[in-house]
């Protein structure tokens, strides 16, 4: 029975709005513009956020850099530096929240190819190095797990080394000598360029860290000076840190009152700040867009007031034949809500298409969540009802005798 009443009202309201299509369209324009700009802004900032997130992750938002040497809080070096060892490495690798572990052993060695010979930075690492550093090969392959297991004499050249020793020629499949021992070049890395500090990131040769130890003819064992650990997710980072610290303290037999003789560096704080900033930006932009929604709502109120005045006589007739105030309120609220919902629906569609357009233009994805669509619908409905209340109330309070005498 209630629903019949509802349906009757909505049909009546819809047919009434359809009678004056240009006016209905113009009235809903404010809502269309408001909703579509909110949709666009949220979609674009959401897209930007995922891009930023991705970049942060690739920059190390979920990585931990382990370094030997602990420091006291005042910055004074304390105790002996202790390099990491293979055992610690495999224990880390076995942790459930650890995605990959990459050791870093840095040396400088005499490197020669044909008649050219230079001292070059050599980095011993493993197959995870490329993934953790998000560093694809330009040509050939990266070292794999087998190479690391076998201590294979293979190497991957940084872009600068490739250029210096081989020029335009592709180094892949050639052999170079590192401290007199022959290494086969299996690939070259893409160019990363200079750091902001001006250091050439591409000037090194990467080999399995196991082969570095093996060929050291001086009998000197290179320790693992750094380990880069990547956590499965950013959320797990804290737990991973905790597990590693516990493991290292245990294997190293550190007593309760002893300081760590290693340190762990993460980029969490920076990451969180940046993500917070994008969130603030999103809220700010939506708030600005919402202003146009309010303006749209006032437009609806304005037209509804005009409509009430125009239909004074009709309202009088309806009250005379038995309409109660709630019937009149409902009649006009249905209309304003319908206008706003129509505007909301068109606004969502328009916002959808425009955000695809803008996305092409700015070059990052537009992400429209169902959440933002639902919120847009609810919000436009709310605007319609909120700004329809006053005109509807005014209509319901009419004196039927005066209203019925009104000539349009």
């Amino acid at each position: 029975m209630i629903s019949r009443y509802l349906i009757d009202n909505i049909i009546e309201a819809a047919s009434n709005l359809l009678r004056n299509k240009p006016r209905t369209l113009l009235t809903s324009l404010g809502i269309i513009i408001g909703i579509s700009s909110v949709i666009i802004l949220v979609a674009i900032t959401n897209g930007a956020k995922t891009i930023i997130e991705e970049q942060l992750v690739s920059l190390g938002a979920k990585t931990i850099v382990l370094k030997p040497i602990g420091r006291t809080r005042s910055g004074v070096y304390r105790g002996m530096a202790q390099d990491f060892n293979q055992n610690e490495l495999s224990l880390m690798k076995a942790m459930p929240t650890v995605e990959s572990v990459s050791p870093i052993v840095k040396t400088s060695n005499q490197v020669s190819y044909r008649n050219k010979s230079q001292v070059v930075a050599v980095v011993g690492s493993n197959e995870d190095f490329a993934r953790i550093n998000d560093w694809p090969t330009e040509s050939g392959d990266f070292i794999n797990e087998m190479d690391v297991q076998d201590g294979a004499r293979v190497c991957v050249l940084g872009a600068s080394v490739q250029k210096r020793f081989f020029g335009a020629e592709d180094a892949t499949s050639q052999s170079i000598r590192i401290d007199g021992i022959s290494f086969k070049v299996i690939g070259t890395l893409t160019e990363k360029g200079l750091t902001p500090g001006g250091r050439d990131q591409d000037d090194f040769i990467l080999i399995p860290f196991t082969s570095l130890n093996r060929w050291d003819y001086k009998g000197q064992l290179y320790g693992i000076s750094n380990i880069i650990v990547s956590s499965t997710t950013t959320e797990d980072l804290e737990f991973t840190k905790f597990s590693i610290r516990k493991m290292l303290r245990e294997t190293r037999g550190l007593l309760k009152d002893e300081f760590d003789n290693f340190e762990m560096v993460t980029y969490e704080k920076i990451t969180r700040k940046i993500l917070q900033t994008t969130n603030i930006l999103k809220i700010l932009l939506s708030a600005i867009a919402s202003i146009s929604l309010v303006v749209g709502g006032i437009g609806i109120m304005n037209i509804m007031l005009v409509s009430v005045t125009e239909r004074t006589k009709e309202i009088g007739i309806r009250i005379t034949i038995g309409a109660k105030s709630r019937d009149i309120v409902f009649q006009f609220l249905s209309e304003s809500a319908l206008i706003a919902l129509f505007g909301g629906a068109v606004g969502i569609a328009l916002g959808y298409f425009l955000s695809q357009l803008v996305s092409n233009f700015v070059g990052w994805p537009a992400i429209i969540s169902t959440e933002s669509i639902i919120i847009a619908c609810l919000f436009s409905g709310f605007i319609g009802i909120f700004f329809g209340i006053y005109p509807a109330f005014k209509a319901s309070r009419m004196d039927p005798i005066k209203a019925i005498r009104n000539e349009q």
Partner: protein
Amino acid sequence: MNEHKTIIELSNINKIYNLGNTKLQVLFDICLQIYEKDFIAIVGPSGSGKTTILNIIACLDRPTSGQYILNDIDVNSKSNDDLSEIRNKSIGVIFQNFNLISRHSALENVQMPLLYSDITDKKTRTRKARECLEMVDLTDRASHYPNELSGGQQQRVAIARSLINDPDIILADEPTGNLDSQTSRDIITLLKKLHEAGKTIIVITHNDEIAKETMDTINLKDGKIV
């Protein structure tokens, strides 16, 4: 004097309009008793308060003072919404200028009071509206809009609308005022038929023919019954 029960009873009804700093009294101590199945004409010169009294009887207006008992209900104690319900169920009102809603068809106008009643079934509504249009002999104009109908036809639609909830009382304010004499006669015949069907009818009129047909005539002059 009358075997029927009292349906409308006005006692000492006064109506005073406040016009800024002056007061205009248009009804003076009106006392009136109307019985079921009465057919009453209200006559009087222009401005004598006929419409004012009819609006009060129709529960569209409230007297400044006095008591109005309708069907044993004290009308003054009721809220506006209660009065809407009373108008919807027990009173049918007909106006000189018909007061149809122009963007609705004849059939839709006739069934509009049902929108505010308990009858929610669409089929029942349409059937009832058609029956009422049949009573005023307008079935062939059901889908016409008011501006496609003659004055007499519009008034018959208005009468059909007043009948839709089968009210006990029909109130008409100069129903033939805008119609020519032949059409007026049709309307009078209709009102007579409704009276014969058992309705209580009060009609304001300048039309002697109507006044002749009624059982009784109330003469108003300067807001007083004479």
